[in-house]
């Protein structure tokens, strides 16, 4: 709150000279902005504001350092090749082995299931909201859709475990599956990321200039043809950004998979199997009381570093694509 108090301090002292300058000084329009550099209170407050913005960079640097230092300890014990390409994940066993492939397969399965759910539903919703829905319907549908993103992930997890896996898959559909499955976790995760995919895609479609739709209509195309052949391709970079951001969220989601995907790290070969994802392992390992500096503690951070690296890559791809469509129109 320091910035606020100093702003108040500045405001009392600074008003008189500024007013006097405006009356007697030469009529240069920019004089008030330039003169602000001479006011110490104002300058200090601006520095405080800049520091607040700079803290965000400190956070990122902090994350990178916090993940890398314990990971160095981990990679002293385990080679990078063994970690990335090993096919057995058993960090707590007597004959411990640290191949991350089983965690990756579970993550890929849940993410793919989530995308199969979220991409068609999210894009369908986006096309409807952008191209078809009248303003009043949009005003109702958008907030309702946003609620899907606001449901706590533990509640989704409970829903995936009890209703989707328990009631729907086992009791109603009689699928050959156990207490957990990557399908149930992925499906529910997909529902969670529908608003992510929908809102960013809709932004991109709404940004397509109206003249393009009119041009398409003038050539005799109906709304479906205009949506599919004109608006969709024109908004493609924004749509790709939305999907990539959806992937990033699915990879990083923790509680749904910790509750509903299962806890055994094995290579997953089918959607009805259980499996431990990278985030599932992190959540699980966090429950054990591993001491700072122990191999268990370092393992947690090595997996966290891999997770961070993958989502960072996804985020930058997404930001790139968003820039492209913002620049295009």
């Amino acid at each position, binding site marked *: 709150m320091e910035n606020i108090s100093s702003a108040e301090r500045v405001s009392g002292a600074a*008003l008189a000279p500024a007013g006097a300058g405006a009356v007697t000084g030469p009529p240069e329009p920019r004089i008030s902005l330039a003169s602000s550099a001479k006011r110490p209170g104002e300058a200090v407050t601006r520095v405080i504001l800049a520091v607040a913005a700079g803290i965000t960079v400190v956070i990122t640097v902090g994350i990178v350092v916090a993940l890398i230092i314990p990971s160095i300890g981990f990679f002293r014990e385990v080679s990078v090749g063994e970690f990335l390409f090993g096919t057995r994940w058993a960090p707590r066993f007597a004959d411990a082995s640290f191949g991350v492939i089983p965690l990756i397969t579970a993550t890929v399965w849940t993410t793919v299931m989530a995308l199969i759910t979220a991409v068609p539903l999210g894009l369908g*919703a986006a096309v409807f909201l952008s191209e078809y829905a009248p303003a009043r319907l949009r005003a109702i549908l958008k907030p309702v859709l946003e609620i899907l993103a606001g449901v*706590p992930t533990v509640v989704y997890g409970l829903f995936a475990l009890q209703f989707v896996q328990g009631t729907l898959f086992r009791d109603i559909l009689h699928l050959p599956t156990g207490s957990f499955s990557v399908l149930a976790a992925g499906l529910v995760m997909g529902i969670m990321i529908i608003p992510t995919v929908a809102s960013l895609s809709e932004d991109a479609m709404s940004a397509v200039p109206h003249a393009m739709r009119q041009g398409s209509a003038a050539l005799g195309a109906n709304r479906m043809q205009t949506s599919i052949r004109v608006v969709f391709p024109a908004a493609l970079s924004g749509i790709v950004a939305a999907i990539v951001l959806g992937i990033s969220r699915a990879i990083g989601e923790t509680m749904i998979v910790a509750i509903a995907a299962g806890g055994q790290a094995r290579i997953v070969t089918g959607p009805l199997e259980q499996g431990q994802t990278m985030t599932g392992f992190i959540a699980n390992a966090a429950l054990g009381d591993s001491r700072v500096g122990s191999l268990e503690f370092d393992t947690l951070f090595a997996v966290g570093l891999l997770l961070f690296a993958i989502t960072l890559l996804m985020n930058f791809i997404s930001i790139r694509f968003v820039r492209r469509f913002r620049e295009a129109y």
Partner: protein
Amino acid sequence: MGIAAEISTPARPLASKGQVKGSEHSARSLIFLGLLWLTLFIAMLALLVLIITTLIQGAPRLDSRLFTEYPASSPARAGARPAILGSIWVIATTAVLTIPLGVAAAVHLEEFADRKNRLNHLIELNVQNLAAIPSVVYGMLALAFLGLIGVQNKNLVIAGATALGLLILPVIIIATREALRSVPADIREASLAVGATPLQTVWRQTLPSAVPGIATGAILALSRALGEAAPLLLLGALVFVSYDPNGLLSGYTTMPIQIFNWTGRPQEQFHVLAAAASILLLALLLAMNGLAIYIRNHFQHRW
């Protein structure tokens, strides 16, 4: 979109084959619209089923015991009192820590930062990226930091609030920037023209005009923090708390963590308790979302 229908009418005699394919009421066009409706229907249905199943499962235990009792090994005597109080403590601390910082950062980026400056460009890119980092990573950051300063007991209200604060900081910055951006330049120029300094302009004109937008963003960000569990799991919040948390250095558990705990128990009655606590959490979050939308619709200036 009446334009499409109007314009296609004169084209009709020119292309008789295209008329069938190009009409708004052709079979393919109607199927397409039907599919779009179906996607929305499925999304809404999923939300509805989630709410209804949770309500049905949790209703039997949605009683006063949930608010007054402490966690217990017997489901009949168990409640979520410390978790509810813990959530209040953590979220209030998060709000106090994060909102002033986020607003200050947004004011710098939106009002003062030189767009051509490379550092500011980097900060902007960084904020966008921070918003998409998995929440569990923020828990790892806080965990590593606590290890660094040698804190043995991770289960502190202030540690949980810091992790959640870092998580929602980018959300608050982005929302505040959007609110500031929507204040017209005329207002700033008028303020500067009557002799106010740039900071006076921000403090007396721009920020007050942006308050509804900032409040909406802050409430939505806090509601996200309220429902978040992953970072707190890493910070040792999954503990048996049989007392009311009473300060920043107090031990705590929160509602999402309590729900996670009960979900993992084998007894069916604990799952009922988890559903009951979920109803409470959902109701709270819906109320916060509703408040945010209300503020946005009723207090936001239309320029």
